[in-house]
């Protein structure tokens, strides 16, 4: 398969219904999820800043903003319900609605992880007796893990905007470096533990690293749904290396 133009999805996923209101309803549903995604990235970055840079106000901001994402997820559920009831979607439209419903869950759960990190920041504040709880190396490692997770998640949201298979593949390709960054954080935490972290403080940092890794996992889940919409193939629980190789071979 050498002609990459032949591998484009067979319909314009963004529009084209004879009933234009149908396009608007799908666009509205997708718009809600894109907004949720943008907020989750902001929440995650604020939560990590609260923990790494000791900015307590950022942690409170994350907790204050949590309900906004929850309410948006309720709006997304409502739109899914109404589109199914009104339009009885088929084929690619059915895949879009089912996938966006699952993506909304992943985005909402990623938002919960940001809240979890913010809570760890506040708990560390309460536990900390001195100002230098985290070494600069630890801070930098967490920032890198945050950058990796947020980059994957932003790509996931961008991929949803256009149901972009190539972008979804980038997310899969980023997974090993996400796990590597998470592994490094845990390794470093072991060393810091020996340098005087209490078990409770160590648990807070472990929880943070795990939450960031999970945000990256949610991005990968979103990427799976993007491929499902664009190609009609369910690639969950499939070997990533073979999947990437196959789709790259087909020009993505």
């Amino acid at each position, binding site marked *: *398969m050498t002609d990459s133009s032949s591998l484009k999805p067979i319909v314009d996923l963004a529009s084209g219904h004879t009933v234009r209101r149908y396009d608007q309803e799908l666009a509205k549903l997708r718009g809600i999820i894109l907004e949720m995604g943008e907020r989750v990235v902001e929440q995650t970055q604020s939560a990590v800043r609260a923990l790494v840079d000791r900015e307590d106000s950022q942690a409170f901001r994350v907790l204050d903003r949590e309900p906004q994402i929850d309410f948006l997820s309720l709006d997304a559920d409502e739109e899914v319900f109404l589109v199914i009831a009104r339009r009885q979607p088929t084929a690619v439209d059915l*895949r879009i609605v089912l996938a966006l419903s699952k993506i909304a869950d992943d985005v909402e759960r990623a938002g919960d992880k940001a809240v979890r990190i913010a809570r760890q920041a506040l708990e560390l504040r309460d536990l900390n007796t001195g100002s230098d709880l985290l070494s600069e190396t630890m801070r930098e490692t967490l920032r890198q893990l945050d950058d990796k997770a947020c980059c994957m998640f932003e790509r996931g949201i961008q991929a949803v905007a256009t149901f972009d298979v190539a972008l979804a593949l980038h997310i899969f390709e980023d997974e090993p470096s996400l796990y590597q960054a998470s592994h490094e954080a845990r390794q470093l935490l072991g060393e810091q533990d020996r340098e005087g972290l209490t078990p409770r403080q160590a648990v807070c940092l472990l929880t943070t690293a795990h939450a960031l890794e999970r945000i990256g996992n949610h991005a990968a889940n979103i990427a799976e749904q993007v491929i499902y919409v664009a*190609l009609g193939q369910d690639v969950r629980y499939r070997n990533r290396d073979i999947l990437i190789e*196959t789709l790259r071979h087909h020009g993505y």
Partner: protein
Amino acid sequence: MNTMVEAIDKATGAMSSAELAGGQHSRATVGDFTAVDPRMVCRNVDVWYGSKQAIHGVSLDIGKNEVVSMIGPSGCGKSTFLRSLNRMNDTIVGCRVTGSIQLDGQEIYDKGLDPVPLRARVGMVFQKPNPFPKSIYENVAYGPRIHGLTNNKAELDELVEDSLQKAGLWNEVKDRLDQPGTGLSGGQQQRLCIARTIAVSPEVILMDEPCSALDPIATAIVEELIDELRQNFSIAIVTHSMQQAARVSQRTAYFHLGDLIEVGETNHIFTNPQHKLTEDYITGRFG
């Protein structure tokens, strides 16, 4: 080979066929048009109305105990194709059918073949219920009588009851069999027409938009009936309701401008069709 790889190869391969020649769509049928146990076998069927070709080289099987739905926009040829399956087009001046249409291995367009018994073997239910202006009993008894399918009144009574039972109408009409069929409701009239069709023991039943004149409740009853009839008959149904095609059929064929564009398992056609024209039509992106 990994099944995922096969699936992606298949999906992307089909997409490429849809995009051939700079966006021109291939007219070759996508999907397997054969049936495992075919009752009717159609190959390269062309239908002409005078100099105008309405059907272009359509090949499609109607399998035993299956419902095949035919969908497509108005003028796509689905009804023309359906009517060619029991030579109903013979009555149209200037209509010409070429290619091969076989019923249990026998060419139905053989010059020596009498279309009247053929239409008993391949019965038809029309869009608008059309009971004879006779009693309910006579509507069902007429076919078996002229085809000599019973030997006496008792056998005929039994056949009428059995047909009305199979059509799900018996309990509603058993006490008024002598009343006019035209006095029934629209949904009951359509089921009476179905009873009339199955009374002559067809092998295949053709249905041309059988529910388009019925309300949703009557439609649901007929759809339930279609599912029951499948146990004993092969059914080909033309419908403008894609939801109905999705509900009642095991295979779906999509027609466009006289071509059979795509055929496949209904579950697949309505979730992941392979041809752009099919996708556009069933998702409402085609006028």
